[in-house]
């Protein structure tokens, strides 16, 4: 069976920059930061007191009784998927639900539900553990809840690869549609890990920035003063659809998903390969699968989380894979504004990549005052226009465990 072409027909998010795609994109183009001081009581004693919480609490949107049965990861996924569903014009579409699927990833899963229930167990005994704890905290709960919401019966999958999870969700959806197993998949990722335990853990492994300055300036990919990432939260969901199905129903097409590359470093459980070899192989695989030449790439939404090592390694990858064309590519890190959404990152950044192609506009990288001399990339400090014509873009995501996922998108 020939591979089907796969396109993007809907986008949805709830992010630190906005409660939907329009507000998130507008803030991104303006170079606004979603990083704030945490106001939670527990933050007082934490080594890091800043994070990028969602701009709009999901409980303002989801009805109270429904919300209390959903972990925050599922709440974000439901909000983002509902927007993507409407954006794709699927509300009134006549669909074969056996061919409608979900692939929503999470890096950590329902950690808040798990730990809140542990608190109840320890303080009040086993009787007080919620009977809903397991279906709320399981990592596949967001995918399952979205499947329930729309009656999606082709599959409800949850790829888990730490900070590469969101991209892996999109990659999985691409395969499912390409090989004819579904017509439409709601794909992406979600994360809600702003809780003292994961924050203490990330801080203790020296992954989080301890910069005491203005929170808006702390996430600074590729800047010489970067010292770690800022934890974010939220979800992104993209509607992936076979081109023939999208055209048959007259859907708006944002971009084409041309290919994906997934590799593993086999180097270290947490540290990236310093030369970025695993990431390079993922990019090369994505280019090969997409049948793209390096010169077709005009834009990269980088993983660049604002860590000392990872940001350099990604610069090396881009040069190793694109050769001399690397100098002509507009490379940005939207994490400078959103913080790091972990399992939601690849999804939110795929939305940014798709919109960059659609509007021919790259979001900026903020807080880049002094470019690290070990990084040779063209990074826009303000939103930058991208070339017209038939062009392509990459979204990179890398995760603990040595997971690397690059996804190639093409303009339409």
């Amino acid at each position: 069976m020939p591979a089907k072409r796969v396109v993007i027909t809907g986008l949805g998010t709830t992010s630190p920059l906005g409660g939907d795609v329009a507000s998130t994109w507008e803030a991104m183009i303006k170079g606004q930061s979603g990083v704030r001081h945490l106001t939670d009581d527990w933050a007082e004693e934490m080594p890091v007191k800043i994070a990028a919480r969602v701009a709009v609490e999901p409980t303002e949107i989801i009805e109270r009784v429904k919300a209390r049965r959903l972990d925050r990861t599922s709440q974000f996924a439901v909000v983002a998927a509902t927007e993507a569903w409407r954006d794709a014009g699927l509300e009134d579409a006549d669909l074969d639900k056996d061919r409608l699927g979900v692939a929503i990833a999470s890096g950590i899963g329902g950690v808040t539900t798990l730990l809140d229930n542990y608190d109840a167990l320890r303080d009040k005994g086993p009787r007080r553990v919620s009977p809903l704890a397991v279906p709320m905290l399981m990592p596949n709960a967001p995918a399952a809840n979205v499947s329930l919401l729309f009656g999606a019966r082709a599959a409800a999958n949850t790829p888990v690869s730490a900070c590469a999870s969101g991209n892996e969700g999109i990659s999985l959806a691409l395969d499912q549609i390409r090989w004819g197993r579904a017509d439409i998949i709601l794909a992406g990722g979600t994360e809600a890990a702003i809780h003292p335990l994961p924050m203490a853990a990330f801080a203790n492994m020296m992954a989080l920035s301890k910069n005491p300055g203005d929170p808006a300036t702390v996430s600074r990919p590729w800047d010489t003063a970067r010292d770690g990432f800022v934890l974010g939260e939220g979800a992104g969901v993209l509607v992936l659809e076979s081109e023939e199905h999208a055209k048959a129903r007259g859907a708006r097409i944002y971009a084409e998903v041309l290919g994906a590359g997934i590799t593993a470093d086999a180097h270290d459980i947490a540290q990236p390969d310093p030369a970025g070899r695993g990431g390079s192989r993922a990019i090369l695989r994505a280019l090969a699968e997409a049948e793209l030449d390096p010169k077709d790439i005009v834009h990269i939404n980088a993983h660049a989380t604002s860590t000392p090592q990872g940001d350099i390694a990604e610069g090396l990858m881009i040069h190793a894979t694109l050769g001399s064309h690397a100098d002509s590519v507009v490379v940005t890190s939207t994490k400078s504004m959103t913080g790091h959404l972990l399992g939601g990152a690849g999804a939110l950044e795929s939305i940014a990549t798709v919109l960059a192609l659609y509007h021919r506009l790259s979001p900026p990288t903020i807080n880049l005052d002094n470019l690290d001399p070990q990084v040779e990339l063209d990074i826009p400090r303000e939103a930058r226009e991208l070339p017209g014509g038939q062009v392509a873009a990459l979204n990179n995501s890398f995760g603990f465990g040595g997971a690397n996922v690059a996804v190639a998108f093409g303009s339409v």
Partner: protein
Amino acid sequence: MATTEEIRADLAEIVNEVAGVDADDVQLDKAFVEDLDVDSLSMVEVVVACEEKFGVSIPDDEVKNLKTVGDAVAFIERAQG
């Protein structure tokens, strides 16, 4: 000692909190499953919240006998007595 009406009103608040049922609908003659659409997992949450609120113990074996709001209120009254 709480009156039957006081217990019913407190129980109605719990059922509203857990299952979103309008508190005014939680009357003695109403069945949790058939009339109020409280599913089995929500019922477990209601029972645990009642134990905390009314200072009683409601064994799992007993829960299946609490078909109506009146059954639950009567059980709580006896357990408190």
